């Protein structure tokens, strides 16, 4: 245990963790497994960790990565290479030490009624963790949307925990052709809740769909972050609250928000 780990809080770990494994699961999308800690093992679906790659190539800010699974031994994180920071992360190797802070943010709340899960692209990752945690998963349906078959991942993993998994792609190269909202419209039964993570336009259309069908919807949002702790106000999104519009922090009040209150 180094001096920083001694100073970590009871809830949030901050210190070095070891890369146990890193794999490119589809082109440009990586699954990295790191060693866990007492705090990280208590992560919930929708929460994230802040990662600083240990590299000569200098980036300043940590990168928020969504947690795809966590237990006492390992934490699984999924990320897509989008810029320099994630490119450097993709160059990590087994055995490397990286600086980790987390778990951070408010994730999906556990629900005991039938729920529809909707994941688009990289947004599938936190839903895997959520699917594993749901107690009524035999009644849970999941729709995964990707651009094409080459970008699809975790299909078999989802099928191992959920009975009803539907895949759609923009070009029809895997599953049915179309988008997530369209597919949700086809398969909906008596579910009253949607939990979604994906691109902003997808979350916007799903929130509209939920409104029309009198459903509750929880969406996981992304924004550029500074501190990850709620101090810098860098990652805000506009939310309806008490009849007013206000900026709320993705890192603190989110990343999971009531989709009906998000101003897209």
């Amino acid at each position, binding site marked *: 245990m180094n001096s*920083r780990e001694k*100073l*970590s*809080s009871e*809830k*949030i770990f*901050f210190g070095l963790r070891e890369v146990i494994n890193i794999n490119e699961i589809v082109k440009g999308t990586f699954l990295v497994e790191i060693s866990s800690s007492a705090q990280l093992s208590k992560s919930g679906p929708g929460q994230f960790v802040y990662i*600083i790659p240990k590299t000569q190539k*200098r*980036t*300043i*800010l*940590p990168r928020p990565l969504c947690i795809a699974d966590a237990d006492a031994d390992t934490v699984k994180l999924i990320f897509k290479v989008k810029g*320099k*920071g994630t490119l450097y992360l993709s160059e990590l190797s087994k055995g490397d030490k990286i*600086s980790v*802070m987390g778990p951070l943010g408010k994730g999906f709340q556990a629900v005991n009624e039938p729920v529809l899960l909707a994941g688009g692209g990289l947004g599938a990752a936190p839903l895997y963790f959520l699917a594993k945690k749901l107690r009524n998963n035999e009644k849970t349906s999941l729709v995964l949307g990707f651009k094409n078959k080459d970008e699809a991942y975790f299909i078999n993993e989802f099928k191992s925990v959920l009975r009803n998994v539907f895949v759609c792609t923009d070009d029809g190269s895997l599953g049915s052709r179309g988008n997530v909202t369209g597919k949700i419209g086809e398969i909906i039964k008596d579910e009253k809740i949607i939990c979604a993570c994906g691109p902003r336009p997808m979350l916007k259309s799903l929130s509209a769909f939920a409104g029309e069908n009198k459903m509750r919807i929880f969406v996981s949002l992304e*924004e*550029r*972050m*500074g*501190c*990850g*702790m*709620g*101090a*810098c*106000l*860098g*990652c*805000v*999104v506009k939310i309806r609250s008490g009849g007013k519009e*206000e*900026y709320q922090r993705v890192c*603190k009040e989110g990343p999971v928000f009531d989709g009906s209150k998000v101003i897209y």
Partner: protein
Amino acid sequence: MINIDISTAVGGLKLKNPVMPASGTWGYGEEYAEFYNPGELGAVVVKGTTLEPRHGNEPPRIAETPAGMLNSVGLQNVGVEKFISEKLPFLKDNKCVVIANIAGDSIDDYAAIAERLDAEKDVSAVEVNISCPNVSKGGIAFGVGADTASGVIKSVRKKYKRVLIAKLSPNVTDIVEIARACIDSGADALTLINTVKGMSIDINNRKPLLPNCTGGLSGPAIKPIALRMVYEVKKATGADIIGVGGIECFEDALEFIMAGANAVQVGTANFYNPLVMPEIIGGFRKYLAENKISSLKELIGVAVH
């Protein structure tokens, strides 16, 4: 074994150690309390506070740059009344020395907020922000000219009796001139520097990455600029200075002390190392002990010739 004293003073304000967060990088002290008690710090400088609550600028508000970051938060804050009723009690409970960073659209705004805070004895000092580059009115507009800077400081001085610190912008031709104007107008000390105005372009969308077009550059990229300005102002005026800009370790902080700063603020480094400030405080103690120096005050300005 010598007795190590890392206490310092800024404009008459006594601090048990020289380390405090830069305004806007540490919220109101609650956020990082997960990791350590904010009362361990020399002082807590709170989020820039205005008379009325502010929404701030449209996101995205942050862009990463080489060795730094740009922000255009735009002074989002709860306003002075909520600061006093909702945020100040936590800081008081944790025995923090509180420095309120204040900003306004007009000289009257600054005077009104100063008057309000003068009635709050738990606020030990105000840091007058005449240097925010991210708001369309006020902020830096007051800080780029000696006359306008002087006008704001005089108005605050009339309403605020305790320690008055002016936070200056580096986006000026002659920082010494502005510094002198602030001291002559009643400032007890100066904070040097606020962020450096910069920009970043999204090459895919072919437009500025920040909707506000420009933002304030912070982080290690600006340390040499900040250090030079602390040095120049100390040499020319001898004023009490809080040095800030790109400090990410104890050695950086010590450079500022040797350049003439009485205390230091840490900003962007908090984002990637939430323990950086306690680490810097520990670094000062260790350095003094190893070099058999009994008081940090002996090191203030030793490099100024």
